[in-house]
């Protein structure tokens, strides 16, 4: 066997290992209802703030600057309480869509990684024609 073939074989083995390593960590997109069925497993849920709660975001840095509690609901209308063990992301109030990565613990969706909440950055709304149109009809 040629050396090059050996090298390529090693390379292919490396690729497979790498892909498998990613597969081991994969999470899946769930709704809040199916996430409850997979309690304890890391899942991704796309939700938005549950406006039935006022406020829907509870962050009291005076008492604990490292816990943010939010109430969300998903597109199917399931609601849940989310506990995020970090500071409140700066523009969360404005977010129309929140991507949550964490585990369901009982009725609480628990997020222990800082990257576990992704909200769209406000600058990205700027090119959204709807936002611009709203802006033009105000004041």
């Amino acid at each position, binding site marked *: 066997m040629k050396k090059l073939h050996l090298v390529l074989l090693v390379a292919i083995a490396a690729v497979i290992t790498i892909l498998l390593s990613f597969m081991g960590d994969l999470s899946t997109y769930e709704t809040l209802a199916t996430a409850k069925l997979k309690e304890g497993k890391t899942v991704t849920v796309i939700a938005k703030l549950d406006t039935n709660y006022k406020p829907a975001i509870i962050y009291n840095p005076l008492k604990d600057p490292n816990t943010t509690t939010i109430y969300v609901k998903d597109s199917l209308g399931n609601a849940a309480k989310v506990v995020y063990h970090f500071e409140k992301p700066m523009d969360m109030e404005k977010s129309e869509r929140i991507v949550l990565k964490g585990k369901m613990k009982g009725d609480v969706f628990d997020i222990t990684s800082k990257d576990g909440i992704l909200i769209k950055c406000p600058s990205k709304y700027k090119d959204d024609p709807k936002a611009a149109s709203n802006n033009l*009809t105000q004041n």
Partner: protein
Amino acid sequence: MNYIGEHLLPGQLGFFFLILSFVAAGMACFAYGKAAQTEHLEDSKSWRKLGRVFFIIDAVSIFSIFVIIYTLISKHYFEYYYVWNHSDKSLDPKYLLSSIWEGQEGSFLLWMFWHAVLGLILMKTSKKWEAPVLSVVSFAQFILASTIIGIYIFDVKIGSNPFLLTRDNFGDLPVFQRADYLTLPRFQDGNGLNQLLQNYWMVIHPPILFLGFASTLVPFAYAIAGLWKKDYGGWSKDALPWVSFSAGILGLGIMMGAKWAYESLNFGGYWAWDPVENASLVPWLILVAGLHTHVVYNSTGHSLRATYLFYILSFVLVLYSTYLTRSGDLQDTSVHAFTNLGMNWQLRLLVFVFLIPSFVLFFMRYKKIPHIAKEENSWSREFWMFIGALVLFLSALAVIVPTSFPIFNKVFGTNWNIGEDKEFPYNRIQVFVAVIIGLLTAITQFMKYKQTDKGATLKSLLWPTVLTVAISTASSVFGAINYDKYGIGFLIAIHLALWASIYAVIANAAYIWVGLKGKMKAAGASVAHIGFGMFLVGVLISSAKKEVLSINHLNPLNFGGETKEKGEENLTMFQGIKTDMGSHWATYEKDSTTMGGKYMFFHIAMENKKSGEKFTLYPDLIKNSKGQEGYSNNPDSKHYLTHDIFSYVNYANKTKEGEDTAQFRVETVKYKDTLYYSSGFMILDTVGFRLENNRVEFTEKDTAIVAKLTVVPFNSSKKLTAYPYLTFNNNSIEYVPDTVISQGLAIQFKRPTDLTHFDIGVKESSNLTPFIALKVLKFPLINFVWLGIVIMIVGFVMTVRRRMRLINN
């Protein structure tokens, strides 16, 4: 309707140049293509002349478009949607430029601008390769121009035109029923530039990054020209300085973005494996792989096929990254990704229109690309360089595949996603890449092409190796690198990678003296390698030894098995109260605002516990631009040679300042009665005349009745004491409440109802005293990251100069 006060001429002129650049690029592509195809020399020359004319027209049009957009923005013509949406009157002139590239149209324009500049240089320098190379460049210009012309063909919108008027975009809105709509307040000022982009890095990072993206077109164009003209290796020497240039500039552009993220974003670092960052890194990795196989080909004739593959892929991946960033398909995985402008089909087409023809051409010609059947000697430089290039390529795959999961999900209906921790899945692979690349970078230069004298190589490697082992062992033993969050295996990998990176620095430095006998002119590659090695050392140390200084020791919930995972990283700091931050004392002294309240700076006095050194950090909050309420936070760092102290404010009650509307809630209690508040309870211990307390010392003259209460918060075992009191002055009663700041409590002693019952007022409010939630991090050796990049770029510049001199001789 005749609208009043609009400036329509510049827009019409701009649109004319848009169309002209589109048409001229198409014609240039055709004419240059003809020149490349025609065998007849005279015909070819006249086609080439025509191609030049059209390309120059294209370039001039693009420069004109740029000037016109800048004029519109600087004159604040808000009737233009692009101007209205991306700028406002308060912007500093340098940020007017940033306004141009805040939007998609402007970024594409910037890209085309650099293509035009590079094309003009190639026209002068590429000699016999001019026709095919410029034909490819013109084709790219043609395709890119189609993304900004904004015309409709059979009801299909092609591109998005930056010269559209606001009323063209939103014609249905009632406001445009008025001829004098421009006098309305909402047209007196624009939407402004995003706060986070109002940063000097945002003035220079996009142009450099786009120059990097644009420059990957040059090796691609040469490669396509080589396949097209069946002169497979003839372009190799001419293209080499361009590749070094491209790798240097693209690397610089990416790392400038990292520096910007470090200085003005709150990710707490310079790299977060965000899909948008990944998408720019991958073309660079593949380009660098191509650079190495290219050098191998020039010296030995091996690896030409791989070089072709890498150059084609690197440019196609630049296009793919544009699609990823711009299409909105990544919006659930990236914080940077932009929203969909309704032209995703065009962005996808952008990739395929280059991908398919270039790969068809590559595979058609594959068998004919010369290669050497005899395989490389395993004691040769080319063999190990090829292995290195292959590892870089695999490393790029390991980044781009998971980044593309959302795309796979879209295409194949799968449901994949990276887990909660998005950085570790990348880090645990790339750390091994660092081990291999570090080792190869160290050793390979000591080998010779084709056949190496083993003894001599080992001999010259001896001292660098001994030195490396000494330094590495010392840094592992005394460096206290004990990052055990992901277990011992990963920690060992970090140490191995650190050793390999140190080896890369030392061995390449040694090679300049031993291998090149100190000839600095030829040392470009070694210098670039030293820089890269230093960069790796900086990355490894600053990440593995990153320390959170603002660890919240006060939070009693801060224990248990998962503590490590949870971020107890913010500390609440009350104004004027000295707070313990591990190695430092920190005091939030005061705050100040500038620019009419736009920036709110927090003055954090830091004091090193050991050395007593004092300095002040000024992290700030910036009020968001119009149309978006709220604040963005902006970090501040104290830079030392060996580390940075990095801080940012996550919350400040000042921003919510309003009237304190909370009322005292009064209850009548007896001794030892319990009063509840939202997060705890308090007990009335005793009431006494001039009772001894920690607030005031009463004299004989005072008439004061003091209550003593013990406050017990639910979330803390620490009990607090409050002494509200009342005094009699000139027959009037003065109530002096006591505050328990950490609980947001004010407690008032109202009056005794009788000798055993007392009225106690309790008020809860968060506005009692200014406080902030602050995060402070320490990044050791972060300067190695930046210094390493600078040295690497210097190395690239040296190689460009040397390669150019070699061509000219």
